């Protein structure tokens, strides 16, 4: 595949993630616009921190919800962190589950919280796969001597 085809695939794929599937919102676009020559890996770096944080928080949430007496204050604090991080990178479907999860925390609803945790893991896994694919495309474009195209909603 030549550079032009790779760049087209990159734009089409990103647009689909935003417009059709709703995995990402305009915040991801904002993030891409912050990337420049002085920091060409900015988006990758920020998203990598998001992956690390989310893996850790999901693990913590599993442990906290597995306790006999669930500390909902602690659960809510973890979900709050995750809501902030997902919102910062534009992972809107993850953020939306966080909003529902925080309502369950407020009601001290264990069953609802466990359901939200499963949903959170599912949405996170989906968006992580999509973003990893996007980064692989970026690498292919760069390796073929092209530049990362910009896209707009």
């Amino acid at each position, binding site marked *: 595949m030549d550079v032009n085809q790779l760049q087209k695939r990159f734009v089409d794929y990103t647009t689909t993630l935003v417009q059709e599937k709703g995995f990402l919102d305009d*915040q991801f676009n904002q993030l891409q616009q912050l990337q420049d020559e002085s920091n060409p890996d900015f988006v990758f770096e920020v998203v990598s921190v998001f992956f690390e944080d989310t893996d850790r928080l999901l693990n913590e949430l599993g442990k906290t919800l597995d306790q006999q007496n669930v500390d909902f204050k602690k659960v809510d604090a973890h979900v709050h962190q995750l809501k902030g991080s997902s919102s910062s990178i534009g992972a809107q479907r993850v953020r939306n589950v966080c909003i529902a999860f925080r309502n369950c925390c407020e009601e001290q609803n264990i069953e609802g919280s466990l359901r939200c945790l499963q949903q959170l893991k599912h949405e996170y896994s989906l968006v992580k796969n999509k973003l990893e694919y996007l980064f692989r495309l970026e690498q292919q474009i760069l390796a073929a001597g092209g530049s990362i195209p910009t896209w707009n909603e």
Partner: protein
Amino acid sequence: MSSNSNTKLIALVVDDNKIMRNIEVKLLTKLGVEACEVYNGKEAVDLLRDENEFDLILMDLNMPVMNGLEATRLLREMGVTTRIIGLSSQASEYVREVFMEAGVDDFVEKPLSHTKLASILTKYFKN
């Protein structure tokens, strides 16, 4: 420090979320503002107590150890007159009010964008 046209503005980002801090620092840098960052309100208070001076503080609401409201109140009690912008993803009128009562100059909903930050800089540092 003074914030005249010959001097680069210096901002302090106060947020416990590393991703938010990275993005806010990058946004500030892109707009020509030098940026420092700390993890919570207490670290911000300590930094200003040590006579470090800033033109702008971007203050998150929910943080461990010391939240944005406590930190803002303490800073104002210490006589700090720096512009403080309260930030939160909870964009309710209630959050705005409690932030304003604590002593911030303005409140902005998170996530911060280039447009929102540029508008703050224009509003408070026109010259």
